[in-house]
């Protein structure tokens, strides 16, 4: 499964070489920008969620008295 997944990931990055680019902003000119940004954004979101979880997580019978 992992091998197929990684092959697909590589293919989407490689596809960028064969198409005409229409960047809206300068940052999109970086190679594989969207791949990098998607990965980092999700990593950051997971970290934020984890930090918030430490503060706000309660047992799920918290409200049942």
């Amino acid at each position, binding site marked *: 499964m992992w091998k197929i997944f990684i092959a697909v*990931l590589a293919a989407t990055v490689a*596809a960028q070489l064969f198409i005409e680019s*229409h960047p*809206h*902003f300068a940052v999109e000119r970086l190679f594989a920008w969207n791949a990098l940004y*998607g990965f980092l954004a999700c990593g950051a979101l*997971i970290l934020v*969620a984890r930090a*918030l*979880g430490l503060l706000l997580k309660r047992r799920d019978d918290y409200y049942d008295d």
Partner: protein
Amino acid sequence: MISHPGLVLILAAAALAPLRGWPRAVLALAAPAASLAIVWQLPEGIHWQTRWLGMDLVPLAVDRLSRLFAIIFALMAFGGALFALNQARRLELPAAFLYAGAAIGVVLAGDLVTVFVFWEVMAIGSTLVLWSSASPRAYAASLRYLMVHLFGGMLLFAGVAAHVLDTGSTAFVAMSIDNVAGKFILAAFLVNAAAWPLSAWLPDAYPEASWSGMVFLSAFTTKTAVYVLARGFPGTELLVYVGLAMVFYGIVYALLENDMRRILAYSIVNQVGFMVTGIGIGTEMALNGAAAHAFTHILYKALLLMSAGSVLLVTGRRKCTDLGGLYRSMPFTTACGIIGALAISSFPLTSGFVSKSMISQAAADGHLFAVWMLLAAASAGVFLHAGIKFPWFVFFQKDSGLRPPEPPWNMRLAMALFSALCIGLGIFYEPLYRLLPHPVDYAPYTGWHVVAQLQLLLFSGLAFFVMLGWLRRTLTITLDLDWLYRVAFPGLALAAGGAFAASLAAVRAALVRSSVPLGAGARRLLGPGGTFARTWPSGSMALGMMLMLLAFLLSYYLF
């Protein structure tokens, strides 16, 4: 005489209540179909108009924006009714039709008074849908839900009254938030949009509905709010920030959630956030994007909730920690859930791709770099929390040992219909674009756009599996702002009540203490044998009277 598509559903709700068996099923499907047919044929313009209490009322008016929403609401009522045909609770479907009919009433209203009336009917209909679930938890949640929405209705009433006083007109047109009326009306709309920080009612109440009830609930309240925001407050900058807050709130809370339908509830807030952001940007492209996204969102969110509802019906379980591995015995439901998950993630060839990208495009066209970057991060986050997390933990993950059967035929048919629409609109998007409020000059399928979106989503998927250990489900909930009215305010009220009772007791004790010497003094003066109770000779009274008269005489001469 043109009939009103919303009233058709409301009348059908009344007629459905006593029916059973096949007549009920026929009416349940025929009524939304009739409503859809009527909406489709309504020409643009004002159809019903009257005066009442000196106000101009326009209960039925159609333009491109309202027709788009009325079409999707009628379509949703049809799909939801098909899915809910085997629901044993007989209150639910009439309640859902009342709710759907009122939602159509809001979007076809040409004046604010009519909007207010249908707004309140919607609150009642949705509360009845929650009640029909008939569990104590659902009942408690429904009361909190009703409290929030009656509060929102009060804000709307105050705002509409102020607006009519200010302008002398009831017409529902674009408003400004510079005056009190606009602020109240906007606040009321944002309550129903589940805008952060007024969002906690949604994940609190909706997941307590029955397996079919939440399918209806997901569609109408928040999307009528999107409609009224698009009509009343397009281009209001505040909405950009509110929308972005909703987008990230939804993702983070959904990542922490264990209950499969609460994940999807947070995801509603997230998706409505994209629409609210689009309305805040306010260009034709952005408003088209918000409207199109509302349309496609209703379909794929209903599909996701149908797959979750099927799982709930056949397993009786709702927590990710109790589920997993269901693809073995429920391949059809799994496939439909995955189609919904791909559509919500805006995968190419699904409906989400052709709608959400217009909002990002509008941000890019307006050179709103920060907004555009945040929307891209949020798109990746949608795949994370709804696109992978929901199907992974429910249908794959570990083997929970459960081998439930597929749900009944009507539920499978409803899921097949909505799956077809999710993919169909992703490929043949022109009919949807033609329905949008403004002319569309946008081509979603450029090679660059497809590749950029695939990179963004697939690497977000990589992040999910790399960091899976940190996403492991635990038997927890995450505190939200409903904590304020479920724990903090009642606690404060109890504490304040306790303090009040304590201070009352202290005052009472002080009074008792001070009254002991007071009583003794009074007894000395007035008691038997006291000064005032003694018998006095009548001569001493005559003397007293004479002294007083003398004093009066003296003062008369002297002053």
